[in-house]
């Protein structure tokens, strides 16, 4: 199990244990983490699971695919460390990762 912390737009932090191979979005939905909407259910088709990934974890999440980049065009206030959380697979290397949610999704 990998510990992931979600910090909402009010600064509140919630830490959960995530199973390897699941996505950061799935774990948010399963644990009732607020501010991640995931309208399309993880299909990389809506940009409402948008998160900012704290360093040094952003590089460890891997490079977004072309499809994710296309969808990020539609996200709110995209920053260099933006990712769609449905595209981030949980791996042991991400132990202790902190992701922050924007104050709105799409």
């Amino acid at each position, binding site marked *: 199990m990998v510990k992931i912390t979600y910090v909402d737009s009010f600064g509140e932090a919630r830490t959960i244990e995530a199973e390897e191979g699941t996505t950061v979005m799935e774990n948010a939905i399963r644990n009732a983490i607020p501010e991640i909407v995931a*309208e399309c259910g993880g299909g990389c*088709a*809506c940009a409402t699971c948008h998160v900012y990934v704290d360093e040094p974890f952003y590089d460890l999440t891997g490079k977004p695919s072309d499809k994710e*980049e*296309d969808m*990020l*065009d*539609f*996200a*709110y*206030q*995209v920053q260099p460390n933006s990712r769609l959380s449905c595209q981030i697979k949980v791996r042991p290397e991400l132990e202790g990762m902190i992701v922050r949610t924007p104050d*709105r*999704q*799409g």
Partner: protein
Amino acid sequence: MSETITTDVVIIGAGPIGLFAVFELGLLDIKCHLVDILSKPGGQCAELYPEKPIYDIPGYPVVTGQGLVDNLLQQIEPFHPTFHFGEMVEGLEVLGTPEAPSFRLRTSGGEIFESKVVIVAAGGGSFQPKKPPIDGIEAYEQKSVFYAVRKMDDFRDRNIVIVGGGDSALDWTLNLQPIAKRLTLVHRRDDFRAAPHSVKAMRDLVAWGKMDLQLGQITALAGQDGELSNATLKGADGLVDLACERLIPFFGLTMKLGPIADWGLNLHENLIPVDTEKFETNVPGIFAIGDINTYPGKLKLILSGFHEGALAAQKAHRYVYPDKKLTFQYTTSSSSLQKKLGVH
């Protein structure tokens, strides 16, 4: 004022479930008109995942979204359904009684239908342009912010800002640049999804100083009484102020429940509750099949929607032909069904 179209059934939504419902109704001699906001049949399958393989359609180990739609169109061809594309049903009036229902429907395109039965196969809702996440954008819609270009002349001699990186954004950039006062294309990054020749043509225009390309996202709008004057762009180097009288964001499509919410149908979290015998709503004569409905145990699967359409057709027959007896027949053995299918 267009003439009223009188038919047996109006199907709202021409996705896979609406399409297959035509088949089940056709076997029972019931005629259908279908209304869909898209310019083509197939719903989510055709619009969102035409090339994607689907693995859970009974009888097809694998079939693409568009492949399934093409097969369904072939399957319902013998029944000659009439399609009304680019339209959304806005008004629904109950004319008849619960025992002998009848409805008048009015579409966004001004068409009027009268039918005995309505089948709502609206899936996730009608496809609408996705709005960019900019506070206060609603105040400028239809005056200065447009999600589609209907009349090019409305944009003549204006400061135009187009947002997007796909074919729609690049095509309209190339179409409007010659008539604009000044045109700026805004995209989050310097990488475009659009066809390479369109991107090249755009880059040439930028190089010749005939239009601007700005990388970043629009974060704020300024204007008065719905008339836009400026847009704020957040780029890599900070904020840039753009002169902007017309904003055209191409942000893709999203699905919205729309006018269905106003017809007096029971709704549960934007889904229409139905019974599992006939998939009828709380209004006799109005059925809901596919992703738009809900009932205990509901699964949002295409195969479920197919089943729901078959059962709804049985009850629809009682409304359309109240004096006829419905005899259950198989397409394998019934010569009358086979005649209707043109395979006898």
